[in-house]
């Protein structure tokens, strides 16, 4: 069944067309990879899907509901979660509190929280291997720690659709594998995942389908092997 339907999305910034006529279908449980050179509109697309930006034309439907102009926090409550390309931790708060915020505002909304929330937050941190730093301030984490925190917070939302924006950027080979294992485990639990990445081996191993963007348009949408073999995609990536 279709979980996310993006139709003819266009977004401009002044005279610059960041997205032109982008359409995308994501099925429930799917693992979709999104690739494309810098400036091709990947993050803009994510921002439109999540509600950080409003497109000029086109529509976005999540599980049948039109969310095109819905406030971002409401989309999160419907089940869309994301991580940011450059991590945005709540630096003055502890890791536990960082994860507690989405728990309080989404998963446990309307219920009395207290100890249950802290317990669940620590559980999520444990899954990411951040248990020891649970009561440390988020501002003190390393780069890879920050990315894991991003992921923990996104998972706290109990999402049906998880969007990862270059969550492996700048990580070492070992760390990439670690992250990939975590993301695979999330996918096994039935969460639909959209992964934007530059690291090709991660995309190839992870995705069931790959979409390639270039200059704001979709130029390829097929299984990983087919996309990589597509001469247009090769030209975009290897220059020409």
């Amino acid at each position: 069944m279709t979980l996310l339907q993006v139709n003819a999305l266009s977004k401009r910034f002044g005279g610059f067309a960041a997205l032109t006529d982008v359409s995308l279908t994501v099925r429930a449980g799917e693992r979709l990879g999104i690739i494309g050179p810098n400036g091709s509109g990947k993050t803009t697309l994510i921002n439109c899907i999540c509600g950080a930006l409003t497109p000029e034309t086109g529509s976005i439907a999540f599980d049948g509901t039109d969310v095109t102009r819905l406030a971002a926090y409401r989309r999160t409550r419907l089940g869309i979660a994301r991580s940011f390309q450059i991590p945005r931790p709540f630096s003055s708060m502890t890791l536990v509190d960082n994860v507690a915020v989405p728990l309080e505002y989404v998963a446990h909304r309307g219920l009395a929280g207290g100890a249950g929330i802290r317990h669940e937050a620590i559980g999520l941190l444990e899954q990411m291997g951040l248990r020891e730093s649970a009561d440390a301030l988020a501002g003190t984490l390393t780069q890879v720690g920050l990315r894991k925190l991003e992921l923990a917070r996104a998972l706290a939302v109990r999402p049906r659709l998880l969007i990862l924006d270059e969550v492996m950027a700048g990580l070492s080979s070992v760390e990439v594998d670690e992250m990939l294992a975590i993301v695979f485990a999330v996918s096994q639990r039935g969460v639909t995942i959209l992964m934007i990445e530059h690291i090709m081996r991660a995309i190839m191993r992870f995705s069931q389908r790959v979409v390639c963007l270039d200059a704001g348009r979709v130029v390829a949408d097929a299984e990983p092997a087919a996309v990589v073999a597509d001469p247009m995609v090769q030209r975009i990536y290897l220059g020409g």
Partner: protein
Amino acid sequence: MGHWHRFSLGAVAVLAAAVVATQVVDNEYFFYAGYVVLQFVVLATAWNILGGYAGYVNFGSGAFFAVGAYVAVALIKAFAAPLLVQVLAAMAVTGLMGFAVGAMTLRLRGIFFSIATVAVAVICETAVMNWGFVGGARGVAVLAPPPMLFSSTTRLLFVVMTLFALLAVAVARSIQTSWIGRGLRALRDSEEAAESLGVPTLKLKLFAATTSGALMGLAGAPFPLYMNFIEPTSAFSLNYAVSALAMPIIGGTASWIGPVIGAVLLGSVQQIVTVTVSSELNVLIVGVVLVVFVVVAPQGILGLLRRLAGRGGPQ
């Protein structure tokens, strides 16, 4: 929660001490100055709910304070309304002001909210200056009814303001320790991330702005009775705007205790300095101390104390 028991006991003790003081202390000036310091506790605490917790800087606190005072005056002139009615009306009006300014600007970057508060301050002052019913630019005298239970109106108002200070602090504390407080802190640290994690950032900001505005009106409502007179220049004095900002920053913006520390310290210093030195120098000192703290000790006195005690950073 256990810590509310301690807080309530402390609050009752403070109130009792205030009442006892009015029966025991002879020096009238003590209550005169004490009222001003307590008033600043309310003002600083109110400011911090939006400024410290959410990160939106109000430069026009003086206007909220003065509007509270003028609503009270208008009700006195029109209906000889009792203090309670004056206070409730003042809070309603200034709360609405906070909401209105927020609704216009909290969707935009923080600096636009700040400039809007300056705008509101100037517009309010201009409007009041042209409003003859409350005396306009010349001001108007306010007669206080003879105080019940206390030997002077000043002593009565001293106790009243103590109550208001405790109320303001209780509100700030309950916001801070609740899920609302966590949401505000999250949106202060990263509004984008908070919104994407399900925090209704605009609603929370509007809530903080409304509450902050209402509490500033609370601080201003008894002012006409206290002064027996009101006129725009002193009511809208820049000192309120700067102090409301400086006191939480000096005390520490992370917790409700910070504005209290800042208000008590700076307020007392101001009372002493105004008496002994010129009032311009007084205001200059506030400005310099503000800049020094903002640069050198951004977490305020609370932050310094925490660092000395060995724990780093805000809670």
